[in-house]
């Protein structure tokens, strides 16, 4: 049987490896905007997790089924009302936040259904992005491969922006990792980092009422 080995996947997707490093073995995971289920499959292999993906796109839902990944076809913009409070150890939103309209609601929903949230997004403060703006253009790069007129990314932010936003959403940041390709960036992360990862939990850990939306 031909399969992509985990080590190959980690090399191809350093962001997967970064997320996996935060996930405890045998935990229960919800992956929002799961695409073809590759992250969940990787986490199953690396961390023996049990989980579900959520995606709205027909092609992605079909790919998940082909990959043998549990997937729920649903629109994240309408919230996570199909999921119970505290149902998951981790709720992951991998490179999807910047394309969502209801940004605050999804963060709050993640914290309702999960004990911890993990978010990754392209750092708009990355120096190459800044340089392109200074030169008078919206950034187009590997992490932001769209033009201003065709981008699905409507809520781009910097590390600083996101950290302020977490406070506003009552999310307590537990850990941050900033990456440039497969390298971790510790020096001037908001300038040098291309991808940002955050792990967070509820500020006030008392259980929340189930969402009504």
């Amino acid at each position: 049987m031909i399969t992509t080995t985990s080590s190959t996947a980690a090399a191809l997707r350093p962001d997967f490896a970064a997320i996996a490093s935060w996930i405890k073995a045998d935990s229960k995971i919800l992956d929002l905007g799961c695409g073809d289920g590759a992250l969940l499959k990787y986490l199953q292999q690396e961390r023996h997790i049990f989980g579900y993906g959520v995606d709205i796109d027909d092609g992605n839902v079909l790919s998940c089924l082909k990959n043998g990944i549990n997937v729920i076809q649903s629109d994240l913009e309408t919230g996570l009302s199909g999921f119970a409070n505290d149902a998951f150890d981790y709720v992951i939103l991998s490179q999807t936040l910047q394309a969502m309209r209801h940004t605050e609601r999804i963060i709050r929903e993640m914290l309702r259904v999960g004990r911890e949230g993990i978010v990754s997004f392209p750092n708009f403060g990355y120096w190459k992005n800044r340089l392109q703006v200074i030169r008078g253009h919206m950034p187009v790069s590997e992490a932001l491969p769209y033009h201003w007129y065709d981008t699905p990314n409507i809520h781009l932010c910097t590390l600083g922006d996101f950290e302020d936003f977490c406070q506003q959403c009552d999310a307590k940041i537990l850990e941050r990792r900033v990456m440039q390709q497969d390298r971790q960036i510790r020096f001037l992360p908001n300038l040098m980092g291309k991808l940002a990862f955050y792990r967070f939990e509820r500020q006030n850990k008392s259980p929340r009422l189930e969402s009504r939306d």
Partner: protein
Amino acid sequence: MQDSNSVGIVTPQFVHIDKPLELKSGSTLNGYHLVYETYGRLNADRSNALLVCHALSGNHHVAGIYADKPKSTGWWDNMVGPGKPIDTDKFFVVGVNNLGGCHGSTGPASLDPSTNHPYGAKFPLVTVEDWVETQAQLAEHLGIAQFAAVVGGSLGGMQALQWTLNYPEKVRHAVVIAAAAKLTAQNIAFNDVARQAILTDQDFYGGDYYAYNTVPRRGLRLARMLGHITYLSDHSMATKFGRDLRDGKFSFGYDVEFEIESYLRYQGDKFSDLFDANSYLLMTKALDYFDPAHAYNGDLTAAFKVAKAGFLVLSFTTDWRFSPERSRDIVKALLKNNINVSYAEITSAHGHDSFLMNDVYYHQLVRAYMNNIEV
């Protein structure tokens, strides 16, 4: 016409189950016949059996054609066959006519051995749970200890759900399409209007019309016409018929004028020639009674606690008879039980009937799920 990847010519088979069946209603049937068909081969491990459960008006003839009837293509022939989403090269597929039906399994029109007359009104009401029991008897007869999957749409989906509750060890996967964990009041209301059409037909004779050599044709016809409206979407009716007139102008009378009238009357006529009114009544009641959460104070999550199967739940956007919301109820209960489940909401214009249609995405999903079932 037979397509190239049809299962080909098929022959129904019969089994008599001699074991008394205690029904949920409290009645007992001492024995009964089941008519069934099978496609593909049961493998040496007996691990590739797949049961297809039928909906209100379906039967055991799921795929293929009968040698003597070239137009007798099975009701789910687009789904089941060699190389089709439910691939008979991989699975040993079983279709069975439900108890109480009118296509060969014991039902109200069958002869009651104790009187040698049709059961008629004496035939007990049966439930989805009862059907699962009879299907389990058939499985035993066929030497199937566990189904790789139980698959069904609408009322058939309810049976697939019930299988995972009655026999959690005997079903590895359930594919539940355009179904619900219980009917809504509106849905029961539609069923009751259909029943009233039959019950108030003067040829019904309290269900014993067989003795009078007649059938409550008008009632059954109306019931079917009403049902048919609810299986289509507003959009699909508008697209297919619109306000088209058969003769191109109004005739200012009550004969058929609009194409939709012609269509519905035709469907009603065809159905009332083929279906037994008592079976129709009984099937609609089975739909109404289905509610696995009832025994758990309405808690569907508690009801599904025993389930072990993996699930594929599918709904169609324009299905207002079994809306996506009802499928999401099922999914929510499964998620709360940490059960392997996938759910897709298929964009389709065809309403409830979508589950019988040839939609590309729909068939891709079923195929993908089926491909990952180990046999």
